[in-house]
Each structure stands twice: as C-alpha cells, then as structure tokens.
C-alpha cells in the first residue's frame, strides 16, 4: 500500500504539487491523469526517490520513505520498479543483456544463470525469440515491452509506468495496455500508470485520480468519470477545446 500525505514540490516559483493526498491499494491498476505539465510524472518520481518533496510524507507499506538516503532507496526501488516514457534501453547491448543487467548486479549468479533468467522474463512479454538482437531494430511498442521485462527482473510489488502509450502508434499502444492488464491479473502486481491517453485510461484502469494545478480534483472508478459533471473533468474526458481548463 502506498500513501502520499500533503506532498508539496515546486521548481523555482512553479508550484507543481500543492499538498497532494493519495492512497494506492495493493493489486489495483491506478491511473493518474491530467494535462501535460500538471505534475503527474513529478509525483510518481518521488516514490522511487528520483525527486525529493519540499513538504509532506510518502509511506510505503507503513514505512516513511520520504527522507531516505540514495543508498537506502535502493531497497525501495527493488520493490518499486519504474518504466520510463522513452523506453531507456541501452543501445550498445542486446535485448538479452539489457534484461540480464539488473539480475547480474543484484543476484550473485553466473552470467549464464543471469541470461537464463533474463530469457524467462523476456518470455513473459513474448520477446524471447529476439533475445540476441539490438534495441535499434525494433519499433516503440516492442522496445517498451523489453523495458517492462527488464523492470520485472527484480520481482517488484509495484510497477510505475510513466506515459507508456504517449507518442506510439495505436497497435503498439494496445499491446502495452494488454501487458499492463495481464501483469496485474497474472502476477498480482500493483500498477501506477501516468497517462493522458483516453483509450488507454478507459481500457485498463481500475481506479483513476485526476491531477489539476497541483491537486487531485477527482478520485474513483472509470464509471465515475463518465458520469461526473465536474466542469474541468468533463472537458478533459470529452476532449473539448473550450472550457474552464487552463492549458
């Protein structure tokens, strides 16, 4: 279970998070939506210590991880994996070595054993056939699947997706959406997805929280978002150009 309590963060005079409260229960697929620049990615990066809040606390399974040192955050990151928007694979390595890297670093096992486990994880995302090829040979969808496989090597409880379907074609986006849903169903992984892709939001989310100007303005199941008459949420969900939402 993850709790954000009154988290505040600003860059100079740009106040991105103004005292955010959010609770994420185990096993659910939680979507954090909002306009670009609303602070979605900034919020989730606090969970893995890539950013430190100006105020408030972050509780992971009852333990306050707000002011941990970089060294202590390594244990948190083993339980909380993150997949970035551009799939950050290392171009100089094959797909296999990309996925084997964390295994090699964290489990004192031989290179062959690390590679064997890496093939297992690649099989989870259906990419075990292309293990020896390089990331540059693949489109966005495929590369994102390998990035997800790499994040799974540490068997995390939580997986954070930073705008997984932004800027990729519809078929790849659908592949990634299906994968996120399968992870939750088959492995019981709790997923936190930052997105503004409406098709992905209503296709996959168990629960949605909308961030607007540094605060959550709505939090609930997808059905709530179809019926709400909250003017800003309405404008966002229907994709209306005119309305109260400042962009």
């Amino acid at each position: 279970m993850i709790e954000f309590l009154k988290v505040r963060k600003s860059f100079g005079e740009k106040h991105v998070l103004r005292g955010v409260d959010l609770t994420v229960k185990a096993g659910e697929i939680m979507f954090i939506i909002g306009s670009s620049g609303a602070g979605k990615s900034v919020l989730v990066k606090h969970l893995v210590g890539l950013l430190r809040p100006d105020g408030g606390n972050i509780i992971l399974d009852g333990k306050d991880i707000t002011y941990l040192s970089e060294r202590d955050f390594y244990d948190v990151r083993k339980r909380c994996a993150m997949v970035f928007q551009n799939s950050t694979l290392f171009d100089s390595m094959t797909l296999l070595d990309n996925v084997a890297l964390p295994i090699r670093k964290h489990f004192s096992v031989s290179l062959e054993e690390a590679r064997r486990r890496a093939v297992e994880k690649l099989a989870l995302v259906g990419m075990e056939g292309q293990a020896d090829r390089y990331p540059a040979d693949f489109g966005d969808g495929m590369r994102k699947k390998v990035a997800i496989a790499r994040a799974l090597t540490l068997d995390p409880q939580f997986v954070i997706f930073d705008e997984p379907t932004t800027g990729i074609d519809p078929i790849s986006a659908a592949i990634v959406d299906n994968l996120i849903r399968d992870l939750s169903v088959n492995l019981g992984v709790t997923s936190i997805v930052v997105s503004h892709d409406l098709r992905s939001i209503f296709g996959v989310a168990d629960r949605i929280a909308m961030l607007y100007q540094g605060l959550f303005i709505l939090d609930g199941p997808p059905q709530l978002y179809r019926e709400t008459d909250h003017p800003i949420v309405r404008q966002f969900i229907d994709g209306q150009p005119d309305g109260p939402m400042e962009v």
Partner: protein
Amino acid sequence: MTSVLANIGRRWLSLSEGVGQMTLLTLTTWWKFWTTAPDRIEFMRSLYKVGVQSFPIVVVTALLTGAIMVIQSGQLVAQYEAYGLLGWGAGYATLREVGPILIGLMFSGRVGANNTAELGTMRITEQIDALRALAIDPIPYLLVPRFFAIVSMMFLLTLVGNLMALVGGTITSQFLLQVDWRLFVWSLREYLHLSDLFNGLIKSVFFGIAIATVSNHFGYHTSGGAVGVGRAVNSSVVFSAVSIFVLDFVIGYFLP
C-alpha cells in the same frame, strides 16, 4: 553598474558551484572505485572504445608534431651550424612539452568530448534515471570504468605518441633538412635523458585525470535537451584544454 556586478557574481557563483559538483563527483568516483567491484564488461568495453577510438588520431598528431618541432628547431640549428644539436632541440621540447600537450588536446577532443556526449545523451534520454530505478548506482557502473580507461589510455598513448613523434622528426630531418637520420638519432641518444621522457609521461597521467574528471562531470550533469548536450561538450573540451595548460605549467615548474 549593478547589472555588471550581478553578472560577475552570477558567473562566479555558477563557476564555483560547477567546480564543487566536479570535486564531489570525482571524490565519489574514487571512493566507489575502492568500495564496489567494478563491472568487468563495462570496464573492458570502455578500455576498448577509448583506446581504439583515439589510436589513429594520436599517431597522426604525434608524427606531425615531431616533424613540426624538427622544422622549427632546424632553422635555429642551421644558423649556428650546430647540426649535432638538432636531436636535442627537437627531441627535448617534444618529449617534455609539445608532445604531451598536443596529444592531450587531441585526446581531450576525441575521447573527452565523446565521453561527455555519450553520458549527456544518456542523461537526456533518462537512461541514467533508468539505472537508478533498477537500483544500480550509475557512478561505479558508468563513471569508474570510463575514468580509469581514460587515465590508463592517455598514459599508454602518450608513450606510443612520443615514439611516433621522434620517428616523424627523424624522417623530416632526413628529407627536409638533409640532416642524416643517423646523426639525428645519435644526437637524440646523446642529449636526451630518461628524466625527459618520464617528465612528459607524468604530465600525461595528470592530463588524463583532468580529462576524465572534466568529461565525466559535464556529461553526468547535462540538462536541457539536445541543445544541452552540445553545450556540455563545448564546456568539457574548454575546461579540459585549460586544465592541460595549467597542469603543464605546475608540473613543469615543480618537477625539472
């Protein structure tokens, strides 16, 4: 008036902040070298890349440097009819001064700039954050292998470079100055001492440390998209060049 002061103040602050960051990063790199087992694969890859990448450039530079030094001292020697001194005139300056500096500048251009560009790109495309998210400390994994690959390769390549420079000098003296190459080589052996060679090599090690520190720093702390990478590489080669000349003077002064 205040804007001028503010400008100087701001520049001074950002300069000192940069130097502070650089020292901190270097100390952590040194500390992590002793405390964590280096990544064998990444270390071999860095050695290979740094060494192979700069070998042709260093050889060409060294050959030309040797030739230039012989030409410059050739005129002086011709004036005094002291052809026997040609080897000393060219060789001394090459081994101690001009060789390490020019090879250092070439190395800073080829390897330093590339190292900053690569690390900068990894920072901009979030690959460094990805490493941290995989609970892998980027400093021992990325910076330590590059640091020691650059220092060791700079030393080895200066050694090879010095040899190439003398070869370049011998060829030029034979064909351009009509000074028989056997006389040139004799005067090299006669007047040059091992201390000259060591002086140059010690300088090259310090140059290597400067290039590694500066290029790692500017690469690792890149920000601002593609434009930021370009600016980082620019600062990296400029700071490397300045440190090469400053170190050259300091070492030359304290180590006759």
